[in-house]
């Protein structure tokens, strides 16, 4: 049995970045192929003054590799039950929020609403509550929705390889699972109870999904928890390891960012828009083929500006509370959406930037 | 007494009951450096001295040569 992905010492990652110099950054900017050391340089404070140059290169690479397009998707929250107690999340078991798990009929209704709005790529999301929301339930959802969407992705609790294989057979084509923070010590402090407190099991989840045959696997870190620069380098390491081991699997990175919220969790290490931008550009220069996702956590102004510069997929018209699309909210949401434009509005804005919003890129019938 | 056998595709004569290793030596080759295929089966070197050739058998004698 071959080894799982292992991250080098997290403090070493931070140290590597901190010791990068201006000439390291210049060398990284001029290399056609970036090493991990180059990625560290582009994530370092020394690279901040070169943001415009990074933007130009990121734009050139993204355009050449992906074209002048942005793919549109939407999340469908099927349940906000959760057994974990993550300090930073609205769904934490601690919080006395209104909990809801959609019935299969309600899921179909939500899905149809999204289809009518022009969404073809659906991301099924839930809190992590295996008893309330296990593999059987998701399998049923997948079967019910089969054929209605170009692709069905999931962002739920980590599963075993066999469970992913079952879901793949049922019609799920991609899996997103975010490590939240790659810093093992911080991870333990933030995830006090529930299955999520197992750092290693979560870290090995992308491999299990890929081994099960998923077409795509998405990774990410919740920006605002650990040191974003070290998280960026960890993401780079994780990406290259996954590419080597699972060369048939498409890879994406998401950038969920903790935003200041009333009475909500405050970011431990706030990440500014400039920081987020530097991270996105650095990863694009490092990996020309990885999909980069920007969600509706980010404001319309920012997302408009970033079209063409690196990100390749945007969620639109998002509602992060179960049942929120068809009925309007009656259960609590995971995070406040800052870009509340409709799908049509987001598409129009993308057109406005001179790019094509792609609502459909695959077809369920291609899946055996 | 001689018999007819095939060696590397050529018809040749060999003494009846001769062992593989004796026959190879008789041809001027060192059994240690020669690979023998008898009737389509690779012969283990350890068996060269005890394996006897029979009438009409097909012997392939192969060895290493220069190559890229």
């Amino acid at each position: 049995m071959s080894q799982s992905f292992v991250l080098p010492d997290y403090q070493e990652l931070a140290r590597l970045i901190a010791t990068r110099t201006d000439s390291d950054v210049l060398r990284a900017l001029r290399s056609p192929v970036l090493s991990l050391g180059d990625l560290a340089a582009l994530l370092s404070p020394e690279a901040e003054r070169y943001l415009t140059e990074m933007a130009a290169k990121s734009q050139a690479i993204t355009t050449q590799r992906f074209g002048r397009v942005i793919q549109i998707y939407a999340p469908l929250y099927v349940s906000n039950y959760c057994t974990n107690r993550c300090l930073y999340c609205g769904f934490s078991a601690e919080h006395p929020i209104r909990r809801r798990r959609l019935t299969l009929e309600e899921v179909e209704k939500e899905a149809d609403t999204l289809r009518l709005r022009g969404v073809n790529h659906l991301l099924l999301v839930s809190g992590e509550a295996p008893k309330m929301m296990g593999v059987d339930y998701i399998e049923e959802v997948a079967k019910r929705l089969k054929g209605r969407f170009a692709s069905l992705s999931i962002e739920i609790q980590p599963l075993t390889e066999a469970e992913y294989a079952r879901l793949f057979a049922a019609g799920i084509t991609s899996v997103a699972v975010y490590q939240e923070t790659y810093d093992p010590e911080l991870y333990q402090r933030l995830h006090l109870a529930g299955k999520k407190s197992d750092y290693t099991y979560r870290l090995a989840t992308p491999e299990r999904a890929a081994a099960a045959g998923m077409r795509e696997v998405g990774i990410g870190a919740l920006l605002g928890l650990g040191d974003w620069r070290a998280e960026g380098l960890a993401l780079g390491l994780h990406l290259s390891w996954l590419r080597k081991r699972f060369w048939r699997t498409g890879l994406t990175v998401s950038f969920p960012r903790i935003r200041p919220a009333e009475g909500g969790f405050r970011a431990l290490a706030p990440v500014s828009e400039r920081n987020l931008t530097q991270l996105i550009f650095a990863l694009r220069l490092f990996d020309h083929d990885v999909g980069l996702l920007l969600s509706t956590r980010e404001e319309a102004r920012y997302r408009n500006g970033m079209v063409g510069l690196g990100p390749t997929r945007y969620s639109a018209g998002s509602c992060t509370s179960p049942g929120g699309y068809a009925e309007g909210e009656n259960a609590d949401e995971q995070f406040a959406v800052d870009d509340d434009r409709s799908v049509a509005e987001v598409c129009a804005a993308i057109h406005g930037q001179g790019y094509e919003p792609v609502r459909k890129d695959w077809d369920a019938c291609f899946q055996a | 007494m001689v018999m007819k056998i095939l060696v590397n595709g050529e018809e040749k004569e060999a003494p009846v009951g001769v062992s593989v290793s004796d026959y190879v030596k008789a041809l001027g080759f060192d059994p240690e450096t020669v690979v023998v295929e008898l009737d389509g089966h690779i012969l283990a070197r350890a068996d060269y001295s005890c394996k006897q050739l029979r009438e009409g058998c097909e012997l392939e004698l192969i060895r290493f040569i220069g190559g890229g």
Partner: protein
Amino acid sequence: MLIIAGRPFASRLFTGTGKFSSSDVMRKALDASGCEMVTVALRRIDLNDPEDDIMQVLDRNKFFFLPNTAGARNAGEAVRLARLARASGGGHWIKLEVTPDPRTLLPDPVDTLVATEELVKDGFVVLPYINADPILALRLQDAGAAAVMPLAAPIGTNRGLITRYQIEIIIAQARVPVVVDAGLGAPSHAAEAMEMGADAVLVNTAIAVAGNPVRMADAFRQAVIAGREAYEAGLGAISEEASASSPQTGLDFIR
């Protein structure tokens, strides 16, 4: 240090033993090359010439012999040759060459994969010779190949790295050593392959048919060392043509 299937090799230059004008020249050239790994082929004995035996010329203690399946036109023939090589005491390493077209001697991708799978199962350490096809290289690694040997140009053409872009991809994606084999016509080609990150190169024709094979072998030896040194020293980044326009939108939208 180069390691293939757990065995270290001091030299990253592998040499072939074919096409030399005489055994004596071959032996001297191999010594001058500093190589540790040499390839040999298997052929029917020439019944009229008992003296022509490469194994007498080369010291088995000095060189690691890698038998190849040169001449095989399909997987079945290659597997048979591999087993013959093993039976001869040639060890369980094999350089797999499946070349159905005698004119170009280009390797058959399908039968190479089939033969690799069978030979790996049979306990061989397999080094397949392939066209520089990155997907084929990945499939062979998945099948258990101990290295991959993509060609720079067809055997004997001495054209250098005409497949350089694909070889770059193969090197970037490889989980096993990459040995660039065939078509390297000059020491500069070998140096270039090493600078790109190849783990080793195999050279035969360019040395064997050179005006002075012994000196050419020495030149290749130096080139491989130089190329590897440069790679490990971290080649200076090549400055790309300036991306003329800055992004059409500035970054003023960022708060």
